[in-house]
Every structure is written in structure tokens, then in C-alpha cells.
């Protein structure tokens, strides 16, 4: 698992205080209750639009919904307001570098969000080894597959994709092979 910031027991190198966990949940609870879309507390609207465009290529909408539809950007905003406060600069600096890369690759373009999908993919391929991309990818995955109360995984879009049901009770047989008659 060396290719991701994770370990055998699947532990990320995030180390906030317990209070930050509660804050993140409360933050997101409030966000979920408010309609229309919750206000962003850390990211500027233009930044959010660009990061959302990146997340939407990390987990694109195809025959099933993707990062944008799951509300990933709201999770990222909450994370930067709570347990990942110290990672704000990675976003600010990373986005700046990525914009420079965009301008170099596509001189007539105005923003990441306005690029064609194929251009967005090319841009991300150019930055996929950076700490910035690694963090956006990690946050996008946390948002998409984590508990919806943190603001992402809206309508359990992520869990539906993989066939995970959050229940307190299952009965055997659980899968195909334990349902088969004994050989």
C-alpha cells in the first residue's frame, strides 16, 4: 500500500484532536440541513469551482454519479475548516502551481473548470505525482466513500457504487461461496 498515504491497517497520517472530529461532524450536520447548497467557510468560490473540477475527474460521473454529485467539495471545505486546518496551504499553493501548468499546456484557457474533459485529464496527468494532487485525491476518496454526515457521499452515492450497505444486521450466507452447498 505504499502507493497511497496509508498503511496495512489503513491508517492515514492525519492526527487531529477529538474535538476536531466532533466539530467536523457538527459542521457537516448543519451544512446538510441548509438548502440551497451550504456556504463554503474556507474555500473561495472560484477555488471551490476549480477543485471541484479536479475532483470530478478523479471520480467522474459516467453511468453512475461522481464526485461533484456526491458533494465532495463540501467535505473538502469542512476538512480544511476542522481536522485538516493545517493543510490549507497545500491547496492554495497547489492550485497556483496547477493554474500555471494549465496556462502552459492550454495558453488560451481561462480556468480548470472551463477546460474540456480530455484537457482536464491531461492536466491532472501532468500533476498526479504532486503532494497537492495526492491530497485532493485522498480528500475526494474520503468524501465519496466516508460517512455522509461529513458532507460528501450524498445519498450514499459512493456506497451504492461499491455495493456497501451500512446496516447493523446481516444474516448468513453473506456471499456467493458460503451460499454454495458443501462440496
Amino acid at each position, binding site marked *: 500500500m505504499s502507493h497511497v*498515504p*496509508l498503511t496495512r491497517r489503513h491508517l*492515514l497520517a492525519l*492526527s487531529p484532536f477529538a474535538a476536531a472530529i466532533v466539530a467536523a461532524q457538527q459542521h457537516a450536520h448543519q451544512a446538510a440541513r441548509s438548502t440551497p447548497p451550504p456556504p463554503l467557510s474556507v474555500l473561495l468560490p472560484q477555488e471551490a469551482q476549480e477543485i471541484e473540477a479536479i475532483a470530478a475527474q478523479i471520480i467522474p460521473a459516467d453511468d453512475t454519479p461522481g464526485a461533484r454529485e456526491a458533494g465532495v467539495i463540501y467535505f473538502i471545505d469542512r476538512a480544511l475548516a476542522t481536522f485538516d486546518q493545517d493543510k490549507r496551504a497545500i491547496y492554495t499553493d497547489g492550485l497556483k502551481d496547477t493554474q500555471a501548468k494549465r496556462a502552459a499546456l492550454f495558453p488560451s484557457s481561462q480556468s480548470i473548470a472551463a477546460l474540456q474533459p480530455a484537457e482536464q485529464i491531461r492536466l491532472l496527468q501532468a500533476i498526479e505525482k504532486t503532494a497537492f494532487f495526492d491530497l485532493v485525491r485522498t480528500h475526494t476518496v474520503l468524501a465519496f466513500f*466516508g460517512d455522509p454526515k461529513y458532507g460528501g457521499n450524498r445519498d450514499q452515492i459512493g456506497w451504492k457504487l*461499491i*455495493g*456497501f450497505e451500512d446496516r447493523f444486521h446481516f444474516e448468513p450466507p453473506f456471499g456467493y461461496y458460503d451460499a454454495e452447498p458443501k462440496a
Partner: protein
Amino acid sequence: MKQYRPDEEVDFLVIGAGAAGGIMAKELTTAGFSVVVLEQGPYQREKDFEHDEIKNIVLSGMTNQLGREPHTYRASESETAKVPNQKFIQYGRQVGGGSVHFTANYWRLWESDFHQKSKFGSVAGAALADWPITYADLEPYYTKTEEELGVSGLAGANPFEAWRSKPYPLPPLPVKSSGVLFERATRKLGLHPFPTPMAILSQPYRGRGACLHCGFCEYFGCEVRAKSSTLATVIPIAEKTGRCEIRPNSYTRKIETNPDGRVTGAVYFDAGRREVFQRAKCVVVCANGSETPRLLLMSASNRFPHGLANSNGLVGKYLMVDAGYEVHGTFEHPLNEYKSIQATRVIHDFYEPDPKRGFYGGGGIDARFDFYPVSFALAGLPPDAPQWGSEWKAMIGRNFNRTMTLLAHATCLAREQNSISLDPNLKDAWGLPAMRVTFDFHPDDVSNMKFLLDRQMEIMQAAGAQKAWPDTGDNALVPHNHLLGTCRMGNDRKTSVVDRYHRTHDVPNLFLVDGSSLVTACCQPTCTIQTLAYRAADHLAQQARQNAI
């Protein structure tokens, strides 16, 4: 719950309310003694537990957090230790300790585990030693542990297991698809699979309900009390005696001694970070194999300049940890492994070291799935898979319910240079010296893990995996959850820290009961740690009644 004043001298002060401390509390209070238990973590109840992977795994909701209680790591003494990117060690941090969030694998040791040195001889570069006790000394307590806590398994199903005076109190939990595939494959290879013994109830037992197969065992607390944590089992009994006070959010910084060289109690920070001194006739430290030596080293005084119980300098040395890699595989049909307990089948065919292999070591291999949705999406695909985009998304969607894992549970040799010590520079959030971990596996441990990895790949292939791959990346082995051997048990006061009943050689009324006592490390230690606690408590109560502490 009973409350004691700090200036009241209680019979026993137990430090750490975990796997061992919970048992000490129950045994000593039901024997009629007054007990205060200090626990550095909070008192979480079943209503506080959630199926929240971000809280429990990503944000270390039930375990040590590098930001709040940091540790540093170095591979050898010649390096300067640094705070690692990933936790190197991990321990439970709440009432019930690691027994609340552990996977609940519950293996007894083999008879031969207690005399490895006599059987296999010395290993160069390692401090292999015999235990001062035998399996026969522990067997009655193994039986008591399984009965009191509630363990599910099938006696006799493992042809290699040591003798037992009684069968498991509960039958095995239902087999999962990973267990069925593993069983077929290992039998085909001439091996001997058996139902994994688990400290999880397969049927209602002593007022607790059976497992509902929700799948959230490893890293999570059980909402229905089917996992046999000390929180769900012995701690409520201790509290009901009216003689036990559990003090959560109480972080011990020093064990105090008097001019006679006896301990008098301990100073801790309460929830408001105020210092409190609790008086006690006897102190029992059950703070795990990393925090126990750290506390002894922090308890240095004029009389004990190198730390408490450390006249021979061995406190913190001989650190042993869990070892063994994972192999993952994908299958044609859905396994739905996220449901129910993590592991249902295991083999012990390679458990015993065999000199013919050319190195010291052995271990068990089990079939399991210990991913949840986030961790799977970050780390569940083969190394040659894409990392993002449409194709990645499709693979995650297809593989989550078609993947299983084989995990090796391997021996770890004790080496003097592997240790827990106090970091000379870094402090924790309370201003106390951070823990410094110095650790590197013995070359035989490395050879053994590779040997087992080959066996795991053979089994995965024999199981019919469409694709199988080993997970041997840089961080594949961390964080380590089994923290063992750092206050080793022995008869000789020159080569060990505690005696055969866990009394420190240096201080007559100071006892250490947890993973730090273990002399050797193979595979799954919790069952043995808790069994040692029952035995130690039995002895302590007898000694206290005879005024012999």
C-alpha cells in the same frame, strides 16, 4: 460508581483500563479489595460507538493520535528519531483499551511457545529466552478467560493446538466466503484449516446478545456488546461490587516511591489537566507494552535514577511487535466480505519454527477482509491498477465485494536494541517526554515473513483467485498494534524486569501486567495477556490477604 478520595489509601491502583487492567479491576474488587483504575482515554459507551470510518480509522477515534500523544521512531540507535508520517505503534485509548476496538482474534499459545530457547537454541543477534512459566501453569487460566469473557471456537479442530481442559464456551461464528475459499484451498494443499477462535459471541451468553454480523469489528466498538471487550464483560462486574472506581481521562505521569523503596501511589493529570496524587498500597501497571515502560522511565527519582524497576537497564528493551504481510486476491463472484467478523478460518501448519527452513520463525495464516469503503478505495486495488478516473472508479465498484485477504501472523524475535525510551527533545500535549521507538526486525523475522508470503500466494492461487498480489510496500507493516516484551518476565533479576507473578524485581509492591511481560511473541497475544492477568490477580489477592505485598 464508588468514588474514593485521592488521599484515601486504596488497596490497589491499576493504571490502564484495557485488556489486562479491566480483568485486574474485576478480580481484585470481587475478592474484596478497594481499587482505583486510571485510564488516559475517555469512557465511551455503546451509545457512543458509530460506524464511522473517518472518525475511527482516519482520525484515530479510539487510538493514540500523533498530534496529541506523539511518538518518534528510528530504525537503530545510531539515528535521530523523528515523528513518522504514519503511526509506528498504535494502542487503544479508552475504558476497555484495545479490547474495545480489536479484531478479536483469540488464540492460545502453544506449549512449545514457553520454551523456545530450550527447543531451538539461541539465535544470533536475538535475546530468545524461555518463559519462567509453562503452558500447564496457564491452562486453567486460559479456560477461565475463555469462559468469563465468552470466546467462540471449535476445540480439536486445530490438530496442532495444545491440550485444553474444556472446549470453547461457544461454537464458531458462521463461515464467510473467504473462509470457504480458504478451507478448500488449504485442504487441497494438504493443510489443516480450522474456525478462527474469536472473542465475539456466536450465541447469547451471560446476558449479552450474539453477533449481528454488521462487519464493524476491527477499529470499532461493538454497539451490541457481542465483542467480549473488558468494557462489555468484566468492567461492569467490577463496578457493581461498589469497590471499583474507574477514572477516565486520567493520564498518569509518575509513580511515586517512599524512602523504603516502595511505591505509594501515582500522580496523574485529570480531565482538566490538574495534577492529582492517588495514594495506594500497591500499584499495578497495565498500560500496554509501550506506555508501561514509558511510565516507569518517567518515574525516575533519586533512589531510582534510571527509572522505576530499572536497576538492570532492561525496562523498555526487547520490544516485539506483530509481524506478517497481507496478500490480496479477487474472485469471480461476490464475496461481500464487508459483512460479519473479519476472519473465519485460519491455519497453524507453519506456526512452529522448523530449523530446516534455515531461519528461526513461524506463524499462522488467516483468511479475512479488513477493508472498509474508504480504506478499500485508497488501498484495495492491485499495484498496477489506475489511481483515479473512470477506469479506477469501475474497478473499485467491481472489486470491493470480490476481494479477500490472507494475513500472516508471524513470530518476532526480541532484540536488545529494539526499545521504548523517552525522546530527549519532543514533548506531548501535557508537556511529558514523548515516547521514542527504536525498532528493526531481526533478519530471521524478515526471512520468515517472506517464507509465509510465499505460502499465502500459494493458498490464494489454490483458492482460484483471478488475480493475487502481495502487499509489501514501505508502510505495509505499520502501525503495529501488538506491543510486547518491554518489561520481560523471568526468574533472573539480571535478565528480566518482573518475576513469574508480575512483581517487579526491584519494588515489592509494584506489578506490571500487560503485553510488556511476554517473553516471546507469536501471532495473537490478547488471549495470553488476559490469561496472565487472571493468573496475576489470583496471586495478588492471595498475597494481599497474607499481607505479603
